[in-house]
């Protein structure tokens, strides 16, 4: 039990030292901060009117504002995550191209494999670090920006499904691109092919004609529309869970396939 953990730690330290030097993490954090805080501060939108008439029940207005603020909170988080999904569709293939494909292409992977950690652990660490970095940064900035800038009490449970959807999307994007990197052994093919597949998926997902296709190909958008109560998407909660679950299963299958191919690959 102790040995795999120390192998994991050794690979983690090596990957952090090589691929996550300044300004990779800081750049990602800065980019998503601008996005999340920009949306939460609502720089261009007009504000809501307020009317307290004599003799009326102000308590009703209090209930209205509580719901309004809750909706604004939900809207801010989901808008940030939907836009983040498009940025990630471009960034994740770049990160995998530089981290995995370029290491294979320029032989750096041979040096990494001289560590007694094993190929499986090496690929797992590389892939999971990209998942963790992208997932944590997007979740953190969207929640922090909304909590800081939107007043009143906020129900974190309402944004849980959107956050879960972005994590599943990040996993899918990372594991698909990792498979392309292993198959192509080329950074250019990984970056272009990975981004092409991700944007292709999101474009197909934009169509709301077949709700299950919409949820499967663009999970963050579909889940966000669902939690916001958008009438344009006619989908049930069960369909959403099934489609997002299917995407998660496919992502895991892609990871297993990547690991299996990487173990047999000539480097």
């Amino acid at each position, binding site marked *: 039990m102790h040995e795999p953990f120390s192998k994991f730690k050794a690979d983690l330290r090596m990957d952090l030292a090589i691929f996550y030097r300044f300004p990779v993490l800081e750049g990602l954090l800065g980019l998503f901060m601008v996005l999340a805080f920009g949306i939460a501060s609502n720089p*261009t939108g007009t504000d809501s009117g*307020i009317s307290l*008439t004599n003799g009326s029940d102000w*308590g009703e207005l209090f209930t209205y504002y509580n719901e309004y603020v809750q909706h604004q909170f939900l809207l801010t988080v989901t808008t940030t995550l939907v836009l983040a999904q498009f940025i990630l569709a471009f960034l994740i293939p770049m990160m995998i191209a530089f981290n995995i494909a370029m290491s294979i292409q320029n032989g750096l992977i041979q040096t990494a494999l001289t560590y007694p950690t094993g190929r499986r652990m090496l690929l797992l660490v590389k892939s999971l670090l990209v998942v963790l970095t992208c997932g944590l940064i997007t979740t953190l900035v969207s929640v922090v920006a909304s909590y800081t800038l939107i007043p009143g009490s906020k129900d974190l449970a309402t944004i849980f499904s959107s956050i879960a959807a972005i994590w599943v999307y990040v996993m899918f994007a990372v594991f698909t691109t990792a498979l392309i990197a292993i198959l192509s052994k080329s950074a250019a093919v990984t970056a272009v092919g990975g981004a092409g597949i991700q944007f292709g998926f999101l474009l197909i997902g934009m169509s709301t004609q077949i709700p299950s296709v919409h949820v499967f190909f663009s999970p963050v958008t579909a889940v966000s529309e669902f939690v916001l109560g958008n009438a344009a998407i006619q989908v049930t909660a069960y369909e959403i869970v099934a489609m997002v679950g299917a995407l998660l299963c496919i992502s895991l299958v892609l990871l297993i396939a990547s690991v299996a191919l990487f173990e047999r690959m000539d480097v």
Partner: protein
Amino acid sequence: MTMPSRVGKTLIVIGVSLIIVSLFAWTSYGESVDVSHGDYEGIMVKTSGSFYVEINTRDRNFSLFLMTYDEVTAAMRVDTFENASMLLEEHNIASFSGLIHILIPGWYALLVTPQENETISFDIQITKSMPREGFFVPGVFLIGMGTLVQLESILKWTRTKMKHS
């Protein structure tokens, strides 16, 4: 690269990001409302910095109140502004124009009510200017902190180098 220098650079990147957010679009909008005596009408202003307010009536006297979101919702629960603490309170004025300084980003309620027993037509204009201080000031502060941390680590590195040479 040593840890302090990365902390310094991270603070600088976060500071720059906040300054970029503070420079987001300039906005101006307005509304006209008829308000009867005893009623309070206005705008719930969502802002991350100071904003300019211009209120015009046809020479009728009115009162103006500015309060935080928490204060206005607390007043809604008890149906009165009696115990509410105001950020700005003006009485017996026929017009108002001025910059309202806000350092903490958030929502603020701007309310007007006629002073006399009459109905007044109000023109309210809000202009949110750049930079938004709620982001700009913390951004500059973080850049300053980051620069200090960076300088400290450079000085440490120079001292170590001089000791070894």
